[in-house]
């Protein structure tokens, strides 16, 4: 298990700026911290070994340790609600519960846990509508007789009458099924008077002792409202009509319309008192409501059909930890990959007591930019965030069969298992089975670190995403290449201006996720003469969105196609952060081939294979690539699965946008049956999906010249960079890569067809 974890407040920092690190230590009174350069995070003894040289700075030293916690689970807070229990009131909502067997779940509360005072309207006892009252000395719970079903819509009404000392509870399913009796109506005397507390009202959670929030509700809430007096569901009907000015209703306390300000974390009370709320830990918005008909899938065009918010007990946006170490970079700090190495003791077989909290130093901003190198590495931070705490080996069964080998659990994986409050990746599902569509970096991300060996990283080094990219850092260092590091977030924020002066950009091994602004900027750069070295596979695959106001979080909708560990509900394909249609870039006419010349075609995580030289390798246009490489077989070695072609593969497809002038330099072969065609490649399931029988399953190494004198070189394989390092970087994969980089750094324009 891990005894020290943490996270930086940003993944990209410029010289002269400050980056802070939030750290939790479970053992000891102090920890040591120092900055290291990240050149190779791979412990595999078959490779060159870890290379994390110390970079002395003024923050080197020993710091006081403290244990910090994450209080996960989304909810809504209304800060200015008067004490509701002072008089009679009725709470209405239309709800869609999704996980009713995990204890009491609060819909609405004005509650003091320490004093056991106030009220909570909840789902209790497996899904029965309940009312919990506390007067400071004792509590009482009343509930309906029957639980609600999961993933069904209900109208609920809870009326409290202090004069009569009574509560009336009504749960009414919107759809009836023969033999199923899930409606409920209960009138009960409480036998006590709940304390009337003028404290913030919470929805989908209630306060716990110590200041945390608990009893989270899992599911959707649509159109909640509060009305003075004891009312029945007939009164709710009028409140459900949209665009009605409720100011004329003298009894209205609040009516929240979740279809308003969907892009924000605010909730709007359309009543006259404006008891607007704030959402904490990003529950899912732009969720279809009880009245969604299917006539419109775009919430921006019919927001009144998207009046639901889906809350989850395991939503997390910002862990909110206190800063442990802050590092202000000197103005001349070199761009590159770095980490804060933190250590609280000796590691052993039972515990790891050190971590490498990764970050990148980007070039200076604006006028301080200065002379830059010709080469940049685009750190795929959107992909790192998408995969943050990727836990399918924990949450999904069948991963062993997919990997074709046992699932390794290092200390990080064990820690992840016992700490679901870390939150999942965009590959995981919430505890209630719905997909995780938001992922933030403001939390410990256990797989964004050196020394992490992934359960899906291929046999051998078993690296995936960030740590796999350190193979490229090592190779660039060994080759003495001067380069800047920029990140996806930088490109999204700064646009084309950030990259316009670079002659060469190298990608990471798996640059899968991109925002529209970053996609547009990169495409403009390629079309205006940039030289793109696509060093991996399955790039430019999913579209993601950034939030207008919140830092460090992305959204993904796993819409209608692609490799999807969860599938977005029909009608929920449009991103809440920006209203864009989400899903595969391919589905909006921007297949990966348009950007990189090749596109995703197959995946398999057991072993990797090799490339065989293709006739285009002898085309004079490609002669520079194969200088001193006469070999027929390329990359039949490597740290990722034992070959250069593996994990995820891309191939040429002009129908999808590969340029007609593209050269197929080499193609992989010899894949196992577990390297399989991806589902967007077929409409009818073919009898043979595996690489042992299906000739579509291959990586194409490709090259083409682009307009304005630029060019693209594409490897077509996530495993490629794992083959750069063997034999002290002296091998045919390394040589090809160097030949390309050397020519791409030469400013002489590429002339198509010459």
């Amino acid at each position, binding site marked *: 298990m891990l005894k020290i974890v943490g996270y930086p407040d940003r993944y990209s920092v410029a010289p002269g700026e400050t980056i802070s690190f939030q750290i939790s230590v479970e053992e000891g009174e102090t920890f040591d911290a120092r900055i290291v350069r990240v050149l190779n995070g791979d412990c595999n003894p078959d490779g060159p070994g870890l290379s994390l040289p110390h970079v002395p700075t003024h923050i080197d030293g020993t710091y006081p340790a403290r244990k910090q916690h994450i209080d996960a689970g989304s909810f809504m807070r209304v800060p200015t609600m008067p004490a509701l229990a002072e008089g009679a009131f009725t709470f209405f909502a239309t709800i869609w519960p999704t996980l009713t067997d995990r204890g009491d779940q609060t819909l609405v509360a004005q509650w003091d846990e320490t004093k056991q005072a106030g009220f909570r309207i909840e789902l209790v006892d497996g899904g029965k509508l309940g009312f919990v009252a506390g007067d400071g000395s004792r509590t009482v719970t009343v509930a309906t007789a029957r639980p609600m079903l999961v993933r069904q819509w209900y109208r609920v009404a809870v009326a409290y009458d202090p004069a009569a000392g009574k509560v009336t509870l009504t749960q009414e399913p919107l759809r009836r099924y023969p033999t199923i009796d899930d409606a409920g109506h209960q009138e009960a005397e409480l036998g006590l008077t709940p304390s009337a507390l003028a404290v913030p009202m919470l929805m989908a959670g209630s306060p716990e002792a110590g200041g945390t929030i608990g009893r989270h509700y899992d599911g959707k809430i649509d159109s909640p409202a509060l009305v003075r007096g004891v009312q029945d569901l007939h009164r709710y009907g009028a409140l459900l009509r949209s665009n009605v000015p409720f100011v004329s209703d003298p009894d209205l306390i609040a009516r929240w319309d979740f279809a308003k300000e969907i892009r924000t974390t605010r909730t709007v009370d359309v009543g006259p008192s404006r008891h607007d709320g704030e959402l904490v830990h990003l529950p899912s918005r732009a969720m279809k409501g009880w009245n969604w008909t299917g006539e419109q899938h775009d919430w921006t065009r019919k927001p009144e059909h998207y009046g639901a918010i889906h809350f989850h007990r395991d939503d997390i946006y910002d862990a909110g930890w206190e800063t442990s170490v802050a590092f202000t970079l000197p103005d001349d700090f070199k761009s590159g990959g770095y980490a804060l190495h933190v250590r609280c003791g000796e590691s052993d077989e039972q515990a790891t007591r050190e971590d490498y909290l990764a970050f990148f130093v980007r070039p200076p901003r604006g006028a301080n930019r200065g002379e830059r190198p010709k080469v940049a590495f685009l750190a795929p931070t959107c992909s790192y965030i998408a995969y943050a705490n990727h836990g399918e*080996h924990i*949450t999904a*069964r069948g991963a*062993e069969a997919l990997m*074709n*080998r046992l699932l390794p*659990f290092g200390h990080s994986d064990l820690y992840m298992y016992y700490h679901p409050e870390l939150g999942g990746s965009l590959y995981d599902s919430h505890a209630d089975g719905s997909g995780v569509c938001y992922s933030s970096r403001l939390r410990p991300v256990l797989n964004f670190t050196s020394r992490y060996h992934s359960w899906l990283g291929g046999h051998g080094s078993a690296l995936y995403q960030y740590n796999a990219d350190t193979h490229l850092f090592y190779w660039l260092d060994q080759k003495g290449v001067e380069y800047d590091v920029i990140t996806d977030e930088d490109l999204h924020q700064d646009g084309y201006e950030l990259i316009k002066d670079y002659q060469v950009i190298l990608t990471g091994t798996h640059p899968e996720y991109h925002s529209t602004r970053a996609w547009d900027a990169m495409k403009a750069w390629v079309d205006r003469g940039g030289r793109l070295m696509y060093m991996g596979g399955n790039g430019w695959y999913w579209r993601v969105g950034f939030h207008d106001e919140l830092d460090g979080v992305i959204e993904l909708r796993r819409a209608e196609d692609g490799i999807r560990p969860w599938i977005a509900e029909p009608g929920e394909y449009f991103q809440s952060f920006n209203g864009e249609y989400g899903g595969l870039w391919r589905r909006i006419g921007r297949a990966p081939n348009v950007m990189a010349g090749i596109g995703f075609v197959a995946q398999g995580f057991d*072993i990797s294979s090799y490339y065989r030289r293709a006739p285009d390798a002898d085309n004079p246009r490609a002669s520079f690539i194969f200088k001193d490489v006469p070999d027929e077989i390329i990359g039949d070695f490597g740290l990722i699965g034992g070959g250069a072609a593996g994990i995820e593969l891309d191939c040429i497809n002009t129908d999808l946008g590969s340029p007609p002038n593209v050269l197929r330099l080499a193609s992989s072969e010899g894949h196992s049956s577990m390297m399989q065609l991806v589902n967007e490649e077929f409409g009818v399931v073919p009898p043979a999906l595996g690489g042992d029988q299906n000739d579509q399953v291959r990586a194409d190494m490709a090259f083409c010249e682009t307009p304005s004198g630029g060019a693209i070189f594409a490897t077509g394989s996530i495993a490629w960079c794992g083959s750069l390092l063997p034999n002290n970087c002296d091998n045919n994969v390394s040589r090809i890569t160097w030949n390309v980089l050397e020519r791409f750094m030469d400013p002489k324009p590429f002339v198509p067809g010459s």
Partner: protein
Amino acid sequence: MPYKIDPAVDRQYIEEMRRNPIGAHSPGLQRVLNTLRTDKSGRQVILVVLKPFEKWVLGEMPPDRRDPITIEDGPVFTSREEAEWEIFRRRWFQHTGENINLPFRD
């Protein structure tokens, strides 16, 4: 009905598994492995890493994440392939009642 392992038919793949536990398998061995790796109970055998690239033991993840992972004291494996062979032997016994009394390496 999914495939059910028939020891008389599938015994031929045991030696292939012993020689190459991780890698490209014959269709017959792959079918056996797919069957052995299917566990409807929700339990999941895992390979616990005591020391990266040096020492492993087997463990089991329960169906419900709120329950703890169990970790075996031994056997301790010095390669992932050795662990694959051990779990193959155990599952083969569960499915067929037959012991495979062969070490990973002679």
